[in-house]
């Protein structure tokens, strides 16, 4: 450690106190992921009408969030990392929704 160490350059995430995610947590996450995989397959065979894709994407998103928070440690990371992950998905959503705005409104016809 030099005397010039600037604390703002290290935000003390898990590694500051060296928070180590335990295998127990990983096993719970693992089980959850497998469970929800089975759920999504079962749900695909039930006719939920327009909700089928919503349920499928919802389950997939839930699984992704779980992987991000626990397998990828984001729950225990700095605000910067959390913001970064959010920024990535935000930009992805901008791409999807704004491009979609063109395709959806084409069917509305001229004024």
């Amino acid at each position, binding site marked *: *450690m*030099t005397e*010039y*160490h*600037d604390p703002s*350059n*290290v*935000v*003390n*995430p898990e*590694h*500051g106190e*060296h928070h*180590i*995610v*335990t*295998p127990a947590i*990983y*096993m719970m*996450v*693992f089980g959850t*992921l*497998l469970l929800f*995989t*089975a759920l*999504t*397959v079962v749900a*695909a*065979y*039930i*006719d939920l009408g327009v909700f*089928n*894709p919503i349920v*499928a*994407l919802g*389950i*997939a998103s839930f*699984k*992704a969030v779980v*992987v*991000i928070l*626990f*397998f*990828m*440690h984001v729950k225990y*990371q700095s605000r*910067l*990392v959390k913001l*970064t*992950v959010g*920024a*990535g*998905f935000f*930009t*992805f959503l901008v*791409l*999807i929704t704004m*491009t*979609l705005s063109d*395709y959806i409104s084409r069917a509305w016809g001229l004024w």
Partner: protein
Amino acid sequence: MDNAIVATHPHTHETAVHAEHEHVSLPQHRHHFETEDQQREAATFGMWLFLLTEIMFFGGMFFAYLLYRNWYYDAFVVGSNQLSIPLGTANTAILITSGFFMALAVWAAEVKKRGLLVIFLILTTLFGIAFIGVKADEYHEKWEKHHIPGASFDVAEFVNPHAYGLKEQPLAPDMAQKVQIYFFLYFAMTGMHALHMLIGLGLLGWLTWRAYRGEFSAGYVAPIENFGLYWHFVDIVWLFLFPLLYLINRHPLH
């Protein structure tokens, strides 16, 4: 591609973010960082930024999928029903397991257990290879049935499913041609995903070798940690691909 500055080993750009902290002597502290914590955080942040580029990269294809699924829903249903649910589900479980072992590998590095680290990395690799094997089998089946997009794409099964023993609605010929778009997206998205897995498997081999030599069980965990981020990301892409490609409409037909 080779970056000869790191004279000991080659690496691709995917690894450059975490690999370049390799130093001949321990600790692998680089002179331009004040502390090792700063270096480790910078590496993790850098890897996340790289993963953001991957989100946007796959994002383009996800949009194309969204558009054409809306435009040609019937064709997408028929195409999706050509895929095998048991194989797809099994592959999802395999990949989740591979990710589970990767998370455990990171834990083993953090608690400095070399033996466990190597075992978990090997298990991660094995399940990854299993995934690719199943995928190869699925691709092969599509090849046999002439469902690979291109000049030899065969729509007979979609126009006249009953003749092939399939419980599907028959498609008009022009909608049947749109199944080619479904399969294009299937191969493009799972193919791009598989490419990322192959790159990851290559890196895993290299990291396993270095782990065996004890490079990551003395406190320097950044490469394992950051590769884990990459591997989990590839897993997440599959978690979305599976329902989107395999589970479009599996309701029993009346």
